């Protein structure tokens, strides 16, 4: 085998310019794929992080039917304390869950005494919410990074539009599930940076204030956001939760709860999928580049060496060995291209990371791109290149191995 490699490498060196050009083409393909994977992956992960860590959480549990009507924030589909107790027991028995935060979601009127607008609000347990959404505090751009009783954290757009500052007094008026209206005077405790996606323009207040505004006898929860210890376990935990909660049925014998991952709740999931599809097509392009360039080079190599093939075949070289000679040549080209492409790709990714490229997403500005690439991606891209290089060499190599020595020796 070593000798086959020696001959293959010397033949590659023999046609140095062609080898360098082909390997460069492969390397450039690898470089672009790696940079694209790193940049798009970084963008995707950052946005997913923003969505899950400052708004949605990783998974949400609702009463069955709530998500279908989520735009109306129906108080009639909130969960009773008994249901909440069952869910809490379930969550506490699952070590994969790092934190959970029950929320009362409702819509109301927001008045600064001179102006009035509508607002969506989350009544939360501050400690639980901040534990479940670790990036929420960083979105509070004015005021203390806390949610206190008697205070409301208002969205930036409302604060600007109504010229409100931290410490100003406002009134929130809401209709409870029985249809009666109630209002409560609160202080602006902070201003929350807007974020793209569901819940990105919601205000926050203490759950006890929400209970008071909505005149609830007992706390009735609209949704529970869950944070997992390992985001990679998202689907597994989702499946487990679904399986466990499937046993919980309502009076009609139908499932009492519904479980959704962030993917089912945020439209960004479709963008993330688009990015994955684009990555797939970029990889397909790489495959095409490698396939065409390797096939081209190997067809030329076989054509130019027909007499050599005839000679080695005449002196007794087995067809399998001739096949291997050309396959190894293609393999070496693939490896060479992959190594150079990986090295160049890593350098470009390092440079992009060092220069801290910023981008905007929705109303979020100054997001710093931090491209990284997994070792597994390097392996996958390298394996694709090497595998395709071998596949690209197969037809010419097979042709060489099947060549009649007598015809090959006559070739001019």
């Amino acid at each position, binding site marked *: 085998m070593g*000798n086959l490699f020696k*001959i293959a490498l*010397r*033949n590659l*060196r*023999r046609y140095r310019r062609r080898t360098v050009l082909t390997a460069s083409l492969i390397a450039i393909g690898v470089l672009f794929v790696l940079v694209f994977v790193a940049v798009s992956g970084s963008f995707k992960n950052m946005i997913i992080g923003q969505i899950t860590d400052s708004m949605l959480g990783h998974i949400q549990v609702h009463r069955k039917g709530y998500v279908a009507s989520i735009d109306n924030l129906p108080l009639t589909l909130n969960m009773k304390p008994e249901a909440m107790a069952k869910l809490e027991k379930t969550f506490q028995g699952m070590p994969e869950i790092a934190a959970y935060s029950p929320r009362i979601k409702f819509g109301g009127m927001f008045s600064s005494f001179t102006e009035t607008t509508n607002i969506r609000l989350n009544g939360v347990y501050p400690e639980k919410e901040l534990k479940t959404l670790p990036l929420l505090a960083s979105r509070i751009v004015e005021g203390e990074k806390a949610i206190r009783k008697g205070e409301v954290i208002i969205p930036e757009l409302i604060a600007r539009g109504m010229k409100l500052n931290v410490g100003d007094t406002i009134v929130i008026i809401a209709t409870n599930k029985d249809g009666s209206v109630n209002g409560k005077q609160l202080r602006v405790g902070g201003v929350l940076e807007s974020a793209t996606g569901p819940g990105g323009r919601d205000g926050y207040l203490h759950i006890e204030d929400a209970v008071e505004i909505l005149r609830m006898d007992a706390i009735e929860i609209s949704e529970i956001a869950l944070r997992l210890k390992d985001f990679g376990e998202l689907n597994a935990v989702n499946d487990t939760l679904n399986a466990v909660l499937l046993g919980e049925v309502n009076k009609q014998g139908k499932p009492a709860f519904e479980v959704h991952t962030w993917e089912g709740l945020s439209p960004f999931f479709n963008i993330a999928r688009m990015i994955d599809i684009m990555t797939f097509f970029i990889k397909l392009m790489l495959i095409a580049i490698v396939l065409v360039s390797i096939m081209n080079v190997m067809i030329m190599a076989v054509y130019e060496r027909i*007499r*050599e093939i*005839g*000679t*080695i*075949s*005449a*002196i*007794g*070289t*087995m*067809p399998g*060995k001739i096949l291997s000679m050309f396959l190894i040549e293609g393999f070496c080209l693939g490896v060479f291209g992959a190594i150079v492409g990986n090295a160049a790709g890593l350098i470009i990714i390092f440079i992009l990371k060092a220069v801290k490229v910023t981008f905007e997403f929705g109303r979020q500005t100054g997001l710093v791109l931090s491209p990284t690439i997994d070792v597994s991606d390097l392996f996958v891209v390298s394996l694709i290149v090497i595998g395709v290089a071998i596949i690209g060499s197969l037809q010419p190599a097979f042709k060489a191995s099947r060549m009649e*020595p*007598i015809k090959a*020796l006559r070739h001019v």
Partner: protein
Amino acid sequence: MELIKAENVSKEYQVGEVAIRALNDVNFAIEPASFISFVGPSGSGKTTLLNLIGCLDKPTEGRLTVADTDVAGLDRRQGAAFRGEHIGFIFQDFNLMPVLTVYENIEYPLLMVQNVAAAEREERVRKLLDAVGMLDQKDKYPDQISGGQKQRVAVARALVTNPKLVLADEPTANLDSKTAYMIIDLMKKMRDEFKTTFIFSTHDQKIVGEAEIIYTLVDGAIAGRQVKGGNDNG
């Protein structure tokens, strides 16, 4: 016991609609350790006959046995194995591998065809390099040596596997007459040393005289057999 025996061997090629009979009812027998030449004008069937003996092609009719093997019965792999074991080839254009050194070219059949152990390989290659006078050029590549030197390397490569038979198709055609004689002398010397049968085809009348038995081919048939020191037209 004959090394090669041809009985009513014919070879026909199909060129489009036309069938061309390159060899017609050829009969001969060749003993081991012979030094034989096939001569004749272009198109007389010399190369076709050498290709058949070398298991590179199969007769259309008749029976051709080489080292007790009917060459017509060998498939592609068996043919390659047979050639690797029993036959050495010397080509008009030398046909050395340009990416291998002189040493590696001679070593190639031992390494890639016969899988001979390293120590034995080295011994056999060095012995042949010495025999053909190329030991001091062993690390050079084919493009760094002369035509005569290339053909000496080709002779060594043909002999390194200790074949029973070496076939040389116009081995001196691309050499000047002095070098051509040198190569034929070398082939004779190798025949004497290794007891290998050498069969070569040539146009060159001066070189022809160096063979011990000369078969003359005309229009695909053997027109004469001349043994050095006498004629034998039977």
